């Protein structure tokens, strides 16, 4: 029987575990309220940050087009001067 300290670490790489390990882990988290809460926290951290990054990286497509043109212009100018 694994301790909660061992389980909390395994929860970080849950998707990389083998089937038996996964099942054992799930049994532990079903029986252990605290590890289950930790597992849920990890999911919420992912969702929360994904939401933030989505908001932060909302770029206007027109702006992107302008930037692409600008980058190409600069890069080409540099090439020509090489």
């Amino acid at each position, binding site marked *: 029987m694994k301790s909660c300290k061992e389980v909390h670490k395994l929860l970080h790489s849950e998707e990389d575990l083998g089937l038996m390990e996964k099942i054992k882990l799930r049994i532990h988290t079903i029986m252990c309220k605290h590890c289950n*809460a930790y597992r849920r*926290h990890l999911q*919420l951290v992912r969702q929360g940050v994904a939401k933030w990054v989505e908001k932060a*990286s909302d*770029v206007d497509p027109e702006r*992107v087009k302008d930037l692409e043109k600008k980058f190409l212009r600069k*890069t*080409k100018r*540099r090439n020509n001067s090489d």
Partner: protein
Amino acid sequence: MDKLCLNCLNLYMSKKTYHSVEFLKDLHEKKTEMMEHIVHSYTLPLLKGALSLGLSRDQAEDLAQQVWEAFFSKVENFQGRSHIRTYLFGILYNKSKELFRETKKSLNNDPIDDIVESRFSPEGQWGAPPIDPEKFALTAESMTHVEQCLQNLSLNQRMAFCLKEIDHESNESICKILEVTSTNLGVLLYRARNYLRECIEKKSNL
């Protein structure tokens, strides 16, 4: 356009023959269509990547420009050993290190390890258990709180976290971008999530 290996380009973009000789030749010769295609395909991902590090719009645009300049000025260095996206993000990471003036943080010690350690009893049971997930969820949904908590992360922790959780990059690509081993990547991700979890929990209890 006929001379350009468009077929290879399409295959390349679908991550299949990115080491194709024709593709590399066109790229190294800096054929206009090739440059346009690549800039068009990766400017948005690079901008989003820069913004996810917490940069301002101006800084992010400037960083993307720097990546393109660095990439095309030494385009022959790209030999197709990794996907072009991975390669470009590697440049983005190195350029952002300069911006954040971050010297490579030691992977041995990080204060978060002691914080997590202190939550367990010597027998490995929870001494200070996680709070009720419903309460935690309210804070985790607040953009302001999450943004503040992200600032606790070092650049490589933050970038590892975003590449993994937002872009769903493979571990192999992330290791190449950050130039770390897969064990070190595991440590970076573990610490990043714990920093965020501890910070969000703390804010939930205020």
